[in-house]
């Protein structure tokens, strides 16, 4: 090929590249009309002016659950004309930080950790909730929940879904056969444990193995018991590090947990001794209950999904859960749980509209009807919840006597909440004493 031809070839290549780049510039315009004038859209007439706009949502919720989410706001999107682009990721926390730092933040994110929300808020990455969102959130959620979406007095995240962790799983069928009674106080629970142990069955089973998050079920135990042992005030000071992690009151709660989890007479039903807790997967931790080798398993409401197919999860079935009893009923009804918060990285009208809608009881009820989901939204009708355990959870969340506190490790710095606390409790289960463990976790708190 001659030099002249080579030059022509290079030139034509460059031209082709330029042409295709130009072609990329044009795109289909989204449907600019909504359907707010139609009768079935009467509920959405408050959301005018957002037709043809796009809102991106990023969240840790994936697969089937993500499909249900998209189904839940489909009517809203059709009526208002807004387009919601949803993306779920299994590495949500790490990737969200990468995207925010890279200037590619989503419009809305469903944050499962208040600590993460605070991280972004204090970094000036989040937009404060708009007036309508704030009003809707304050109408539908209790102050206990709102404070976790609030940083320095400003609401950034409206609560979304919820789960309750203060549950003890048991087998109603087995309890009936053995004539065991569901305890309603801490002392009753301990007396029951002794009775079960005397009958030759280890009463408790637990598993804290969870890949690189090994230890989190143990931290949940500490948090749940601390709420009961010392109350919500001490709990709040602890998660804010207003008292040291190794405060004597924390040691007291930890030792109370140890009276169960490090008690060879009580654990580990179906798996062996205390140390087997460290290497038993949390998904398998409670399964011996339906085999009659264990009687009690403390785990969140979401454990309902872990039972084998065919298991009857109901009040008189193979497996069910009762509320983890308070120690002193006079101090109220402590509830440990988790959930998500809808936080906004942008404040365009359409973004605020979606954030507001997700805080309505209308949306909450619509989502609950699709199953496998509950919320602390006061307007959520328990009749829209199908799963029996979820009904109980909603009842707990809506009980005025409930004192709700968010999972503590989700409120602490990552180095502690996703690091030394998990690892420390794993070592504690594995034999390390309480003082050494708590001292080490305290020493690792970021300066």
């Amino acid at each position, binding site marked *: 090929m001659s030099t002249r031809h*080579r030059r022509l070839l*290079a030139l034509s*290549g460059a031209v082709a590249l330029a042409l295709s780049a130009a072609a990329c510039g044009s795109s289909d315009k989204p449907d600019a009309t909504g359907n707010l004038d139609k009768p079935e859209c009467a509920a959405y007439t408050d959301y005018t002016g957002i037709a043809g706009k796009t809102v991106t949502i990023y969240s840790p919720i994936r697969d089937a659950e993500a499909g249900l989410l998209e189904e839940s706001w489909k009517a809203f999107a059709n009526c208002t004309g807004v387009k919601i682009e949803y993306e779920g990721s299994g590495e949500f926390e790490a990737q969200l930080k990468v995207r925010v730092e890279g200037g590619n933040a989503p419009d809305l994110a469903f944050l499962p950790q208040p600590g993460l929300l605070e991280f972004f808020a204090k970094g000036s990455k989040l937009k404060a909730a708009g007036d309508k969102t704030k009003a809707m959130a304050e109408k539908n959620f209790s102050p206990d929940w709102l404070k976790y979406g609030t940083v320095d007095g400003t609401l950034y995240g409206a609560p979304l879904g919820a789960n309750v962790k203060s549950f003890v799983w048991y087998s109603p069928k087995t309890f009936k056969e053995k004539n065991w009674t569901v305890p309603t106080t801490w002392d009753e629970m301990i007396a029951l444990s002794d009775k079960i142990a005397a009958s030759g069955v280890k009463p408790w089973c637990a598993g804290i193995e969870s*890949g690189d998050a090994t230890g989190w079920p143990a931290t949940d135990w500490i948090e749940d018991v601390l709420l009961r042992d010392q109350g919500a005030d001490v709990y709040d000071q602890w998660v804010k590090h207003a008292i040291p992690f190794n405060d004597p009151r924390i040691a007291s709660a930890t030792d109370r947990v140890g009276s169960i989890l490090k008690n060879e007479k009580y654990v580990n039903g179906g798996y062996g001794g205390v140390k087997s807790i460290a290497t038993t997967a949390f998904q398998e931790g409670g399964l011996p209950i339906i085999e009659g080798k264990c009687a009690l398993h403390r785990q969140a409401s979401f454990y309902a999904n872990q039972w084998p197919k065919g298991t009857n999860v109901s009040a008189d079935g193979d497996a069910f859960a009762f509320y983890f009893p308070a120690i002193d009923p006079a101090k109220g009804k402590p509830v440990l749980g988790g959930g998500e918060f809808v936080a906004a990285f942008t404040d365009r009208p359409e973004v605020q509209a979606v954030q507001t809608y997700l805080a309505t009881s209308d949306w909450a009820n619509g989502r609950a009807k699709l199953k496998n989901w509950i919320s602390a939204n006061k307007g959520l009708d328990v009749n829209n919840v199908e799963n029996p355990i979820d009904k109980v959870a909603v009842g707990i969340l809506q009980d005025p006597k409930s004192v709700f506190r968010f999972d503590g490790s989700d409120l602490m710095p990552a*180095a502690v909440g996703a690091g030394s606390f998990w690892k420390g409790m794993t070592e504690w289960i*594995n*034999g390390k004493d309480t003082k050494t463990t708590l001292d080490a976790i305290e020493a690792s708190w970021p300066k």
Partner: protein
Amino acid sequence: MDFDFTAESPKLMMLLYGVVAFAAVVGLLLLVLDVLPSRKDRWVALGLLFPAGALLTVGLIVPAVRTLILSFMNADSTKFVGFDNFVWMFTDKTSGMLPDFSSDPVSYGVLLSTVMWVLLVPSVSTAIGLVYAVLVDRARLESFAKSLIFMPMAISFVGAGIIWKFIYAYRQEGEDQIGLLNQVVVALGGTPQQWLLDGPWNTLFLIAVLVWIQAGFAMVILSAAIKAIPADIVEAARIDGVTPWQMFWRVTIPSIRPALVVVMVTISIGTLKVFDIVRTMTGGQFGTSVVANEMYNYSFRFDEKGKGAALAVLLFVLVAPIVIYQIRVMRRRRLEGSR
């Protein structure tokens, strides 16, 4: 679910642009080189080296420099802190880097664990590979025997971790054992154990996994080296009446020494960076963590960029001498060859 071309078209277009851009750059490069008048070979060499050099700079050198800078800064990279991150590494108990013999149970520390890996994996892998190579050399079914030990090389570290996690699985005494190792132990009259729980044995059980993977690599290299030993040397030794033992230590080993060095060095470098097996099998719990695992944790999970970068620098400092040694050996080899 069905593959949706329209949904994926932006990515496909991006891929197309990348290919077209690459072709355009190479074409342009060739065009320019063709025009240059003198010392064409030199310019062609420089021209073709440029893309590789550019990619190496962007993908390796720039990140390395950036990491070095970050290692002297605080958690969110807003303040210069000198050597604080390195001091933390070697003096702060919470870093978990150094052994703590006063704690109960004893904490061997991340550095000691990593040292155990680096001492044991190369030596044991090479030893097993060498013995295996010698034993099956010119034996019937040699190819089949070799493939058995080499196949683990094809498995990802994560896959190997999962396989061996099942092998080590524990169920209490009296239950059916699903872990192969415990099943064997029980069948022989023993008591099932939680192999991954107590150190330093748990680290050794993880090390066994990497040995299983790397022994095949060692075997292949060493087998090739053994076959390359000149036949006349072997014949001369036989005529002199050496025993098989003497043949091994006085003829085979000296002859394949360069290959032994290459194998040991290569496996050492890989071992220093071990991460997947630890993360998959224990998550770094129970005193099994290694430097690479802690680097990942501090950089991406604990929001401690400074400490994470310092650990990366430490890893580089540990690997560098081995690489330098490898380069010097290869250079000396080339000089000897040209003599």
